[in-house]
């Protein structure tokens, strides 16, 4: 158990509404990531963070923003949700120590935008 909690686990909302997903970790890992998973695409990186207030864009960052004001929390925001953002969202963490460290994942959030 890597101590990662994603909330909510499921959410249904309407097009145009703002949505915030939360990732919380208990082990003070430096790196945190947000991915989306869609059939036929595997996992695609949205944004990641390498420290408090240090974030960078991934492959599919358009329409998403992130914030990390504390080591333990990494928030993903959809400012105005669209149906194309219906997906399963995963948070992942990675220790900053050890170059071969893998990512460990949360249990995912299923987001449906109607």
């Amino acid at each position, binding site marked *: 158990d890597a101590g990662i909690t994603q909330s909510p686990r499921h959410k249904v909302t309407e097009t145009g509404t703002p949505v915030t997903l939360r990732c919380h970790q208990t082990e003070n890992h430096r*790196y945190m*990531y947000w*991915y989306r998973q869609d059939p*036929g*695409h*595997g*996992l*695609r*990186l949205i944004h*990641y963070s*390498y420290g408090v207030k240090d974030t*960078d864009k*991934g*492959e599919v960052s358009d329409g998403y923003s992130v914030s990390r004001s504390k080591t333990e929390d990494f928030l993903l925001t959809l400012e105005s949700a669209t149906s194309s953002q219906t997906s*399963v969202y*995963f948070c*992942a963490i990675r220790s900053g120590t050890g*170059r*071969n460290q*893998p*990512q*460990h*994942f949360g*249990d*995912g959030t299923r987001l449906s935008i109607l």
Partner: protein
Amino acid sequence: AQTVTQSQPEMSVQEAETVTLSCTYDTSESDYYLFWYKQPPSRQMILVIRQEAYKQQNATENRFSVNFQKAAKSFSLKISDSQLGDAAMYFCAYRSDYTGNQFYFGTGTSLTVIP
């Protein structure tokens, strides 16, 4: 961006038999790390095995082993004595030792285990 290719969208194996899942990647780097993750229907992402590119010896974890061919940029996963619990989606992932922070995933292979 690195490209990771899993050319087998679906595979099946008879229980107790051996199956090999393929993964290739595109990189010009010499130092990197490779991973296989398993995603059962529960949706959890579970690390199966990892390989450092500088190591010539193939990684092994119980019934799971890899065939790492650096020159061919190939990283296949072999599952021996397949069990019903091995049924899952399997993802191959790459991480650079230079750019470091990002992982790149393949599109996955769905493995069915036939009793």
